[in-house]
């Protein structure tokens, strides 16, 4: 139900970049070639962490045309549910892992006359693949990359040495900031903006672009929501007739899967809409965290995206 076949890969390099970010290289266990992909795509990495299987999406940052290996970069999140900690602490060279086929929810608009990329922190990773794709097609692009400090500026050296005229880097600790208003003013018709970074940055860029009269379709953004921990709760699955406890560090989707119920998913980050599930009955409050449902749908109590959203209350019955 969850779609394409998975890909068995071996970890062939683990490369710490700085105190927060580590890069992983995956090659197919079976030999042969990995599928090509489009810049901006992600893969869902399965992590067998004791009793729990976590599935976290990570942007593919390698050359989309390089079929020998995929690379991802993982930022350690000490407050998260443990997926990134697992990658940092448990995954070693030689380990076998399972990843999904590439899925792209942040693709380039290939009609664009110019691609204006705005990255914050680890949000740089999808752009690394997009830049490789655009370079091959002689595309017109420009990157504005904001990092906390030089020490935490992942891939800054690589980007500025390979593309000195197209890459602009801003360090927070040196009080450098993107002058967004000036940047957006004067861009030629047909320019598309792509922004990937923290929620605040995405909202800032979207808001400014809207205020300056940019069309909605010309502003693209990707924010992966990692499922957040929360209070445990109980869910009843009506179709499969099961009652499941959702743990503190487990998403609703993961709990449904743990119970052996096959539920559809794609991005596991609240963006794609694939896992949308009908609520049959509830008494309590939803904690909706997805980008998929509209506000009125969130308020309706009829739908939930179990990949990132939670529930607090007495009863929750799902059509699953």
């Amino acid at each position, binding site marked *: 139900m969850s779609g394409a076949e998975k890909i068995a890969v071996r970890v062939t390099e683990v490369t710490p970049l700085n105190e927060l970010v580590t890069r992983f290289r995956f090659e197919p266990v079976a030999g042969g070639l990995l599928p*090509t992909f489009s810049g901006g795509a992600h893969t869902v990495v399965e992590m067998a962490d004791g009793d729990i299987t976590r599935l976290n999406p990570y942007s593919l940052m390698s050359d*989309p045309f390089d079929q020998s290996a995929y690379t991802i970069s993982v930022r350690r999140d000490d407050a998260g549910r443990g997926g990134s900690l697992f990658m940092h602490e448990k995954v070693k060279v030689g380990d076998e892992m399972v990843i*999904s*086929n*590439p899925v792209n929810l942040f693709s380039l608009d290939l009609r664009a006359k110019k691609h204006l990329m705005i990255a914050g922190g680890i949000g740089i990773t999808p752009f690394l693949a997009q830049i490789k794709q655009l370079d091959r097609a002689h595309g017109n692009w420009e990157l504005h990359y904001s990092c906390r400090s030089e020490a935490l500026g992942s891939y800054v050296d690589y980007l500025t040495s390979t593309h000195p005229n197209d890459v602009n880097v801003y360090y927070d600790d040196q009080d450098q900031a993107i002058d967004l208003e000036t940047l957006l003013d004067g861009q030629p018709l047909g320019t598309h903006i792509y922004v990937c970074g923290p929620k605040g940055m995405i909202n800032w860029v979207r808001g400014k672009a809207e205020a300056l009269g940019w069309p909605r379709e010309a502003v693209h953004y990707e924010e992966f929501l990692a499922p957040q921990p929360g209070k445990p709760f109980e869910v009843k699955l009506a179709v499969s007739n099961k009652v499941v406890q959702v743990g503190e560090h487990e998403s609703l989707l993961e709990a449904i899967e743990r119970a052996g119920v096959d539920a559809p998913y794609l991005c596991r980050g609240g963006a794609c809409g694939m896992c949308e599930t009908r609520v049959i009955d509830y008494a309590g409050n939803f904690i909706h965290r997805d980008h998929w449902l509209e506000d009125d749908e969130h308020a309706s109590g009829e739908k939930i995206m179990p990949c990132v959203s939670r529930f607090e209350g007495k009863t929750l019955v799902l059509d699953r």
Partner: protein
Amino acid sequence: MTIQFNDETFREDYSFRNSQRAIDRFPFPFDKDSYMYAVNMEQHRGGPADSVYEKRFDVDEHYVSEMRDRAMVLADDPLRCQSLPHMTLAGWDLLELIMVSKSEDYPDLFELHRDGDEWHWVNKPMGIDDTFTFMDETTLPYGPMEYITRQTQGDFCVLDQRDDNLWMDAGMVTTQADWSLDFDIGMNFFEWHAPVPLAHEKGIFVRALKFLLNIQQGAPARRLNWTMTVNPLLDTSPENYHKWGIQKTTLTPENIGAKQHLRVELQTFFRLPRSNALVFPIRCYLIAFQDIVSVPKWGRRLHRVIRDLPEELATYKGFIDNRPMMLDFLSAYDDGLPTSNGVWPEKDSEPPLKT
């Protein structure tokens, strides 16, 4: 398995025929005795041996003649194949998908040898042996989409995915059920389906779009659609409707069994990797009424479906005027016995026609 390719025409003398093998494997579209729109998607990952679902791109006895017909259509009207400028990458994706699939699925007919970006393609049925550089348009006689779809049965719509919609931004369309690529190119999913009656109100297109947007690499899907065509005419285009429309009036009770064809589209959907576009091949299979009714279950069922079809659909599919004559013909093959579920002919278990 070797395929004996027919030498036949889809115009003028209409020498197109289905062999017994082609009849047996015909993708009959009705799984029960009535029809209404449904999203009816399933995975496209193989099917029963020798069925049209078995391979990613089915090659059958009509291959060589269909490609000859396509070349004639394109010579008359090059606008049947168009690709907006941003779709060239998707064209290369499609070329790769088809070459890899056909060379793996039909190694006796097609060969692909790759040395980095230097590719060598052999199409034995069509006598083509070309070398070219992948991603270099100057090394092919046509753009990549046109090059490969001149060698692949069925129409091809290449859909760009953006703004939570699909956009018909490229295509090769010469065997269509009365719609114009030249007119529809650039439209989104709802717009190019706009003329279809009833389905919008039923929410069919909203659900179908949601499904299609989420089709993943390595997980293609398929569905069937159908209409009716008088004479085995592949190119039922609006462009030429003023020429072929008159043929609809040539049916008689004597010739309807041979002239009236059920036209079935095997629609498949593949995510294209480099472009993130979606390719939507629409493969057309034709079968004469007299061949359908040679399968008792299909004869019974087709009569019931056509009889009970809502008037809007019979009008949209263009056979409302001929429906009474069709029913006169088909009713002779419906003895009222029940039919088994599913599309398969079940020749061994289904009772012969009661006379």
